[in-house]
């Protein structure tokens, strides 16, 4: 009798154990000598991720503004929505880089804010004003990337660890795109400004798609503007 009870008890215990899930695995100890990024540099990189997201939000607001029925600049809306997605991609590229270097093993939850303050500007008087704002934003991002590079080359933590690879990556991938992008926006502003007198009227009548064909012709032949 006693043995039957014991057996039943054992059976209950076994079934209880087997219905419970074993959800996690024990993480093996991995040598960490290969992880050589230093704290000040990692912190700057993390801040840069949020900055890229902030720029992305700003362009999202620009896209939303130019999509409005009573603003109606579908071309600019498309341009800014694409710019917003591009900034988000930049943030993801920075994340991927940190992962590649063995970072972001912890503290990921606070990497990007999921609460935001209200955006300071959600209205632009015209497309040129938005482009100028965008150029300013890009210049700030460029400055900020340069700062990340400089911190990562000479971190102030006595390690004197010059992160050659990161500097090269940021210079080659990010600064390259920043400078080209800035030049592109500046060129767009210049075009718009040169044609500004006629642009106001022209642009106003150009929102309808068919009309844009004519506009293009006019843009490419300055003598007719």
């Amino acid at each position, binding site marked *: 009798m006693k043995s039957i009870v014991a057996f039943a008890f054992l059976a209950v215990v076994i079934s209880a154990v087997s219905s419970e899930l074993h959800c996690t695995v024990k993480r093996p100890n991995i040598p960490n000598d290969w992880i050589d990024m230093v704290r000040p540099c990692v912190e700057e990189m993390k801040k840069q991720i949020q900055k890229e997201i902030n720029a992305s939000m700003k362009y999202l607001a620009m896209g939303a503004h130019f999509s409005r029925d009573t603003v109606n600049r579908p071309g600019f809306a498309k341009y800014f929505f694409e710019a917003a997605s591009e900034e*988000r991609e930049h943030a993801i590229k920075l994340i991927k880089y940190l*992962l590649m270097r063995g970072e972001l093993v912890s503290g990921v939850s606070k990497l990007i804010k999921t609460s935001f303050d209200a955006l300071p500007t959600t209205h632009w008087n015209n497309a040129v004003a938005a482009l100028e704002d965008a150029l300013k934003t890009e210049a700030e991002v460029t400055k900020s990337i340069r700062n990340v590079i400089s911190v990562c080359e000479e971190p102030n933590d006595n390690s004197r660890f010059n992160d050659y690879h990161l500097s090269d990556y940021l210079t080659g991938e990010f600064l390259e795109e920043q400078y080209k992008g800035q030049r592109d926006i500046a060129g767009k502003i210049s075009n718009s400004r040169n044609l500004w007198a006629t642009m106001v009227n022209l642009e106003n009548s150009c929102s309808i798609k068919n009309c844009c064909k004519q506009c293009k012709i006019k843009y490419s032949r300055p003598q007719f503007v």
Partner: protein
Amino acid sequence: MKMNSSTLFVVCLLGIIANVNAKECRATIQDACRPYINKQSNPLLESTCNARYGAIGHLEPDLVKYATSHLVKSFEYLLMSTHFGNYDMNREGFEKLFRGYSDSKWADTIELIKHITKRGGKMNFSPISTSADNYELYEIESLAKALDMEKSSMNDAYLIHERAIRKIDSSHDPEISHYIEEEFVEKEAGTIRELTGYITELSQMLAESEDNGLALHFFDDYLKGL
């Protein structure tokens, strides 16, 4: 408080005046084109020369909230994906799955903004406060969280739809109810079923043995190959 209520009164009054003044678009245009009439600075602003009709006025805040919640979820999924991408977790399949969800929520945010403006609405970027959460989750826990997130998103869609089909309180708007059905409800149902399938599968695998390293590895490999 007194100040607030009087401000509210003025705002309401202005709203009523604006509403009374709202002329049909053609009449506005005709007035604007008449040469010797005393013109307002911009007569089009207060007219009906816009893309607003139906119940956009009633549903606009809901749609803005829906777009905002997509934006927040896209960042949440990005963080979940990031966690699985570190060398310690090293779950490429999970990383890919959540990156996909993040991308899709991001694209939907833009689509929702476009649709709000298509209907003459304005996307409002007001402050968003989300309770701080933990996004560093273990495998099956992350799937469970994703399922909760998707169900909550589906619930938001249902609430908008419910308002848009209700005729009594002037929030009836077939265009919006159709849009929600077509673009969100259908896709969401697929995602919810997909996630539930993953959870069923993985929980069966995890119940089978105490040494689940292999199970998790195979499951991750499966997600990676999708």
